[in-house]
């Protein structure tokens, strides 16, 4: 299922995304750190140098995207709309688990209709039970992890994450590991690059780091 053109689409190389991305999410004590590059690629061509791969779903939930941009953007918007409706109807936010499983259900349904969304995503956030990270594949599978990475550079990033991640990291240490893992992937994966986007979720909510803050962590 690694060819999106299987279902009668013409074999256009521009329709053949190579998962050229690295996204990372990891748990620290009291929150989540997430990082992603900004390169959107179509084969060897760089289609965008300021792609947004980290998305806020609600005040305490984020999603990272890799794969076909249109599918991923649509899924982010659809999840956000559904979670908003949930919160408006009840007066409280759904858990991170519900956010992840909602998205997995949508993706599974589409996979079973022989036309899957060509994406691989991470849904992460903070709820009353603490931080959670879920990885989702295009078949609708969902698994909970302590740290996760998707995209072409994920193997490189996992090397750093496996060797450095441990339980109960501080926010600073968590951010440092996420940024180091992404920097490593950037330097060894051709489809990853053009800077970094970094998000942190803690009890205050979701915060997007400025370029200066990212640079400070990178040099620390």
């Amino acid at each position, binding site marked *: 299922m690694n060819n999106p053109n299987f279902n009668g689409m013409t074999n256009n190389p521009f329709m053949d995304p190579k998962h050229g991305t690295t996204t990372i999410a990891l748990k620290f004590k009291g929150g989540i750190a997430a990082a992603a590059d900004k390169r959107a690629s179509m084969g060897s061509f760089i289609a965008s140098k300021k792609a947004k791969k980290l998305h806020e779903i609600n005040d305490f939930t984020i999603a990272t995207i890799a794969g076909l941009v249109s599918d991923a953007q649509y899924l982010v*918007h*659809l999840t956000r*709309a*559904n979670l*908003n*409706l949930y919160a*408006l*109807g009840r*007066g409280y936010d759904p858990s991170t688990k519900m956010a992840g499983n909602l998205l997995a259900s949508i993706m599974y349904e589409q996979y079973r209709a022989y036309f899957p969304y060509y994406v691989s995503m991470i849904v992460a956030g903070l709820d009353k039970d603490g931080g959670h990270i879920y990885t989702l594949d295009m078949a609708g599978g969902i698994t909970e992890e302590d740290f996760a990475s998707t995209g072409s550079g994920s193997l490189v990033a996992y090397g750093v994450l496996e060797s450095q991640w441990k339980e109960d990291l501080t926010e600073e240490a968590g951010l440092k590991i996420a940024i180091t893992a992404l920097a490593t992937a950037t330097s060894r994966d051709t489809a990853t690059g053009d800077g970094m986007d970094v998000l942190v979720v803690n009890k205050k909510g979701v915060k997007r780091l400025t370029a200066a803050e990212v640079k400070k962590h990178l040099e620390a």
Partner: protein
Amino acid sequence: MLGPQSMGYDRTTTMYSPEGRIIQTEYARESVRRGSIAVGIKSKHGVVLAGLLRIVDLNEPDLKIHKISENIQAIFAGVAADGRILISRSRLEAEIFRLTYAEPLDVRGLSIKIGDYIQVFTQQGGLRPFGVGLLFGGLDQTGPSLHFVDPGGGVMSCKAKAMGEGDSEAIAYLKETYNDDLTTEQMVEIAKEAVRKAARDVELIDENIVIEIMPYKA
């Protein structure tokens, strides 16, 4: 000569009376008048919604003011079950709009969408019109906005509005005190007083009056 009621013109929405009225829809407006009072005021400085909760026995009353989206709040008077359906639909419309255009829905746009839906129930056979009046208050591209949707599907932009039991007293008070330069604090006081005038012998306590303030900064 028999009156239009005894001729049976009030039995369905699919038949006009000889005077050109749709009497079932007028009965629906009557059920709005039986609902608990709801008040809305707008000025240059924002929108304020206020309502009275009817506390029956040990029931925990519903919220009365419902959040539709980040920029719109709604209040209704009349049949609670009918109102709930329209609130759900309003939230869905707001999310669909955002999904399609990546912009928040405007108050007038939402009111017309809901008005269009309500109108169907005044023209199609076998349906009962909605027994609720809705007030949508919010901030959008046009600034502060307050719209009233009635059981016939009519949509009106209002400076201030009251609907429900005692609405004539409340509207008289609003007419006396309204100007378009009221601060949000003044609007809250006026809305509270309008509810108090409408409520007549109901004792007003913190638990049975609900207020929503949406301040606007140009």
